[in-house]
């Protein structure tokens, strides 16, 4: 029988990426009792994945590309805190009890403060054929490279927009399997709109320079780039065998065994939604994010948000928002230095300065936001955009009504890869802003939990009968 005792800590950090690690280290160094929980066997998050356990040349490559990650992992190793890895969190209550499973055993952890550092997901990118095996996200290929040095079956073609497309293309190139081509779906008009957000800060200029260097490297390697491509479609019988798209006035077809797609990242709000925190629609970033104040505090006392889970700003910003969240969490538990807080806030603002430019420049194309009627929107339950539009016209004016009647969002991913599209389609048919339409209600378990695990628990629930 599983243990059902409830462990108590001062601060629990959910997610061991840049923001979670920074938050946990800061809190631990302040002398409070900290638990850092992550789904993966090692710390690092998506960006520093593989750093903690890679060896040989892969470790050298990762350390060269992500020096901050190496330093942060060293600091984490030295910090005095409880590390809980390979743990799937499936319920977090408002009164700050965390339920998770580790190797088939359900456990609970009560915390005086919770810092959610859940990071980002790749934005849903529905287009014809995107459910075919062999169509993977660009992030998926990067994870394979980082964790095991494995590249996806070639020939590989990449399609979409966003900094990650360039980065993964460059990483594949270095790994000896460059993509055959990059189909750039960044809408042609974005550039002009983005210009007025062009940042002047040096940190922002560095990021832009880095991007331009990637582009140069890819051009030198002779990788063709089809700019302003539209009408993307994956071709194939059982698995993907090619990709078709419109470039200028022509339809072009390329052969591939793997199609890597990407159109930006969005906050992973699964846990923040399930707790019932307030969320807002971010028009610039085109995503939902939990509401946070300037101390990373959510709408529920004692629950803080760090990193991209609170709004996309990247790994460097995440470290600072993580520390700010830790400082806010320590309020009442340990001394917090005003100076340090100010320093972190300024650093965070510096790193965020480039966001309006990047968000506008890489705003996803309309064809991925409001796909054609035959395109599958909900991958788990295979619900098409046309079926969703039909349900809305029949009186399902709320994403949850669409879900209840049409199954979109009812599969195991719980709407992670269709929720935003469903909100958008309801908004489109109703001619309302997305912010008014809302989002799926999310319920525990945030990730599946077995009957046996559930049955083994005696939850520590402080709340009175409601």
């Amino acid at each position, binding site marked *: 029988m599983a243990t059902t005792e409830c462990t108590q800590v001062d601060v629990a950090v959910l997610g061991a990426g840049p923001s979670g690690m920074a938050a946990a280290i800061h809190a631990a160094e302040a002398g409070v009792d900290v638990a850092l929980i992550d789904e993966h066997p090692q710390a690092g998050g998506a960006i520093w994945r593989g750093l903690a356990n890679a060896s040989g040349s892969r470790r050298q490559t990762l350390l060269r590309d992500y020096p901050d990650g190496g330093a942060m992992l060293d600091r984490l190793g030295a910090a005095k805190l409880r590390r809980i890895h390979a743990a799937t969190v499936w319920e977090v209550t408002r009164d700050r009890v965390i339920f998770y499973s580790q190797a088939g055993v359900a456990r609970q952890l009560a915390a005086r403060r919770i810092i959610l550092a859940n990071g980002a997901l790749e934005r849903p990118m529905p287009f014809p054929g995107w459910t075919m095996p062999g169509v993977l996200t660009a992030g998926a290929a990067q994870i394979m490279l980082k964790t095991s040095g494995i590249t996806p079956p070639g020939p590989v073609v990449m399609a979409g927009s966003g900094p990650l497309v360039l980065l993964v293309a460059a990483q594949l190139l270095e790994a000896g399997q460059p993509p055959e081509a990059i189909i750039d779906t960044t809408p042609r008009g974005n550039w002009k709109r983005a210009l007025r957000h062009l940042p002047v800060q040096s940190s922002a200029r560095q990021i832009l320079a880095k991007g331009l260097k990637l582009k140069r490297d890819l051009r030198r390697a002779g990788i063709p780039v089809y700019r302003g491509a539209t009408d993307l479609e994956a071709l194939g019988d059982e698995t993907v065998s090619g990709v078709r798209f419109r470039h200028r006035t022509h339809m072009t077809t390329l052969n591939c065994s793997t199609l890597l797609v990407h159109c930006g990242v969005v906050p992973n709000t699964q846990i923040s939604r399930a707790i019932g925190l307030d969320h807002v629609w971010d028009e610039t970033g085109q995503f939902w994010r939990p509401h946070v104040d300037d101390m990373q505090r959510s709408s529920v006392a004692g629950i803080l948000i760090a990193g991209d889970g609170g709004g996309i700003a990247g790994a460097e910003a995440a470290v600072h928002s993580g520390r700010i969240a830790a400082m806010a969490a320590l309020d009442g538990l340990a001394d917090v230095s005003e100076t340090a807080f100010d320093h972190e806030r300024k650093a965070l603002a510096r790193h965020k300065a480039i966001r309006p430019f990047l968000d506008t420049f890489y705003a996803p194309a309309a064809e991925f936001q409001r796909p054609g009627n035959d395109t599958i929107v909900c991958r788990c339950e295979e619900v098409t955009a046309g079926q969703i539009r039909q349900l809305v016209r029949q009186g399902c004016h709320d994403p949850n*009504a669409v879900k209840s009647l049409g199954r979109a969002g009812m599969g195991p991913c719980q709407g992670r890869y269709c929720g935003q599209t469903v909100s958008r389609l309801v908004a489109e048919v109703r001619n309302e802003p997305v912010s008014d339409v809302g989002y799926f209600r999310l319920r525990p378990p945030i990730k*599946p*939990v077995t009957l*046996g695990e559930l049955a083994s628990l005696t939850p520590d629930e402080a709340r009175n*009968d*409601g």
Partner: protein
Amino acid sequence: MMARGADVIVVGGGLHGLSAALHLSLRGAKVLVLEKDYSGRHASGVNAGGVRRLGRDLAEVPLSVEAMKLWHGIEQLVDDDCGFTRCGQVLVAETEKELDLLRTRAASVVALGFDHEEVIGASELLELVPAIAPHCKGALVSRDDGAALPFKTANAFRRKAEALGATVLTGAEVTNVSHADGIWQVETPQGRMDAPVLVNAAGAWGGKIAGMTGDPVPLEAHAPMLMITEPVAPFLTPVLGAAGRTLSFKQFDNGTLLIGGGFKGYADTDINRAETRLSGLTESARTVQALFPQLRDVRIVRAWAGLEGVLPDMIPVLGRSQRWETAFHSFGYSYHGFQLSPITGKIIADLVTDGQSDLPIDPFAPERFV
């Protein structure tokens, strides 16, 4: 601003309100349904979908039997199959004592003149539910009962009522009800609505509306919880309950298992929210494990709670207002209103148009709490 008018205003766009709207529209009345959220948002759309006569309060049995006739032809009523299947309902006895109680129960239903409930022994139970834990002694069964899909049903009732001419106004929370010159004046954020007849089918909020018509009832809001598993190979046909436990258990045709029975979550009608309570879900999981130990590695993928109106005697308020000839109530179905919904609307339509119902509804009178 001119008030919008209708022959009948129905407060509540859940199943009971929509059924009343449908049956009234069939008789030519102009019906306006006022729904504060969207149709089927709460108990009507999120319940377990049991279409069950089995084990009902004896006062409800005659209504339930009439409702079942409508369920068996539900497509003729609402032009949609509502996902209804005649899979049967089974109430398991785990001890001889429980089985004796079920025998007494079956006899009392027979005494009322109905024969849908029968007691079966352990061997026949094993035939019906081969996967059941071997300690079970027998069961009470109702073979022509079944299950349907709640939100699909609520949606079908709404669309049929609308097709017959009823208007369903969503986002129209009723903030006040008054009566002047023979007309009900109903205030909503979308303006005042007027009609000579008022039907209160406001579910968990029914007590609030009943208070406005001078029919105070001690209604409580509960938040019964349900869980769904990942799909597993088909092994269970009927809907299963247990005489000595809180359980409602069934398998959908896609292989997923629905686990419920009435463990309560947190209910808050003021902020429109029902939340799950983990201690209830763990208890629910233990119940399933006791009866089906082989399911311990099956994973739960979703859990939720819905807001339901519950009365102290666990039967609804259904009938005319004690104070007004032109106000009618249909709410407080206390965890088991889904199956009754096709008939409750007909009863309301009978009361509105003929002044009486053929069915015995006296036990549900609002004045019973005075």
